[in-house]
């Protein structure tokens, strides 16, 4: 068993990079007071544009496009964030599938992922923690999520900080989408984000809106997912449905076991 775990960890660290980056991006956005359900669509769009261009930057462009639409509706028009996010997910799913069928296969050359995984697990969480808890900009960004009126009365724009948060999320999710399309796959496949954005939303809550929690949550989920495949491959006499559910069950159990009150940003989801 221990051997299986040991063998699964390196696989999990690479395979859960898109989830981890989506979790970190969503964490920043939620800290600024928005729930961006469209993170799933951002990831899918990023995977698509990355596979068309074959570059990281292409992936970021796809994520930026979706985030910009979300920002216009959620920040400028103050539309309902849940509805906007859901609509964007459907749009991204339909649009990427449509264009993909029109242009045919996008067999991009595979990318070596030995830089992205350390970035996602070490560099990015450190930078985010520094930004959110050690800089004035981070304090204001969090203030936009706790009490935007206080931020405004101090002479700062809540909207500007929310745009900044969306920008950070776009970069992270864009890299995650590119990793999904170019490192985990050798090109685009329809709906290839496969619900990672939704799991990211859960992991943000699981991690209590903290960077440390986000990293641990993604790791637990990712290792559990890799471990259940190792168990399937080891011909474990358990129904595969049960094994496939393992990551979700483990995450839920840990969520139940973690003590302490869950404190969401005060103004989360309010326009």
């Amino acid at each position, binding site marked *: 068993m221990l051997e299986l775990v040991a*063998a*699964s960890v390196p*696989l*999990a660290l690479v*395979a859960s990079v*898109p989830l981890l980056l989506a979790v970190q991006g969503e964490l920043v956005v939620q800290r600024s007071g928005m729930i961006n359900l469209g993170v799933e669509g951002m990831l899918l769009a990023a995977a698509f544009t990355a596979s068309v261009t074959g570059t990281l930057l292409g992936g970021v462009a796809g994520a930026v496009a979706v985030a910009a639409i979300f920002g216009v509706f959620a920040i400028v028009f103050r539309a309902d964030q849940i509805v906007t996010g859901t609509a964007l997910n459907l749009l991204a799913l339909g649009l990427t599938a449509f264009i993909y*069928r029109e242009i045919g296969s996008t*067999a991009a050359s*595979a990318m070596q992922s030995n830089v992205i995984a350390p970035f996602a697990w070490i560099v990015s969480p450190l930078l985010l923690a520094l930004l959110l808890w050690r800089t004035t900009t981070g304090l204001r960004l969090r203030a936009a999520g706790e009490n935007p009126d206080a931020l405004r009365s101090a002479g700062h724009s809540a909207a500007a900080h929310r745009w900044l948060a969306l920008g950070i999320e776009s970069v992270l999710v864009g890299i995650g989408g590119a990793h*999904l399309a170019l490192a*985990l*796959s*050798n*090109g685009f*496949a*329809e*709906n*290839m984000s*496969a*619900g*990672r954005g939704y799991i990211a939303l859960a992991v943000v809550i699981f991690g209590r809106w903290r960077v440390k929690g986000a990293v641990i949550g993604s790791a637990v989920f990712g290792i559990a*997912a*890799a471990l259940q*495949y*190792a168990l*399937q*491959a*080891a*011909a474990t006499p358990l129904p*595969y*449905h049960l094994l*496939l559910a393992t990551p979700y069950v483990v995450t839920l159990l840990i969520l139940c076991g973690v003590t302490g009150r869950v404190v969401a940003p005060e103004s989360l989801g309010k326009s």
Partner: protein
Amino acid sequence: MRHAAAVLTLVSLVACGRDEAPAPPSSTSSPTLKVGLLTPGSINDGGWNAIAWEGLQRIRNEMGAEVAHQEAKTPAEFDEGFRSFGARGFDLAFGHGFEFQDAALAAGKLYPKTVFITTSGTSVAPNVSPMVFELEKATYLCGIIAARESKTGKAGVIGGIRLPSIESTFTAFKAGAQSVDPKFDVREVFTGNFDDVGAAKLATLSLANAGADFIFHQANEAGRGVFQACSERKIRCFGSNKDQSGLAPDVIVASAVLDVPRAFVHMANLVRTKTFEPGVQYLGMQEGIVALVWNERLKPTVSPETVAEVERVEKAIRAGTIAVPRGF
């Protein structure tokens, strides 16, 4: 959504109108064959429905038949579609999916002169039959290649969802491998869906860790993740349903290929020549619908004995002297 559906229906109606233009004269003197098709979704899906549409086009082009197509999504539309084909005196009507069986049986009673064919299924009446594709015959050969060429004595198979049709190809793969070496170990992994390329890759890497050095997949689109993992670990694999060699030319040894459009033409020929007999229509290698296609680039890396053995077994399967087991 409703508007989109309406537009799609309109588009398909326009398309049908164009296709029903005077057909080229048929080689036989009999009146023009009329063939209808019901698909459960858009024929632009690049997959299941697109291949049926392609089959219908081939019937029109190769046999000079008059063809019509309708999209039918609900049981009421299945009935209506089949009945309209029957009432218009069609010789043959296809319902492209397991779900069309009940409607085919009902319409079959009302219109005894029309032959109703469902793609997969079990329901049979004097003028109603399902066609069942025997991809198993090609996956059996993949199993033989894996067992003869493996250095570890282990192979892995990866499925999206454990559907009977998928399980059945795995059963045949195992049987092929174990016909070479009864102790050959085939490990099964399912990912739970056909989209998640990352999960398919993770599953493949887990199989590689468990010692498998040949992989066969039935994960559709997510198969890309399988190929990606095989390329990284330098282990060999097989393509499924289509000749997939182009997706990973350095690791795909061969593909188990299914020619669905040809199956449609085959059935239309049976009806035209009045040689159709009711019963489950098993379509496989003899009919040229299932084949093992080598990746010519990697074929030289396989031992000549294995290539010869695969040829020998393929002949025996065609001749019926080797029975390939099915999962159902």
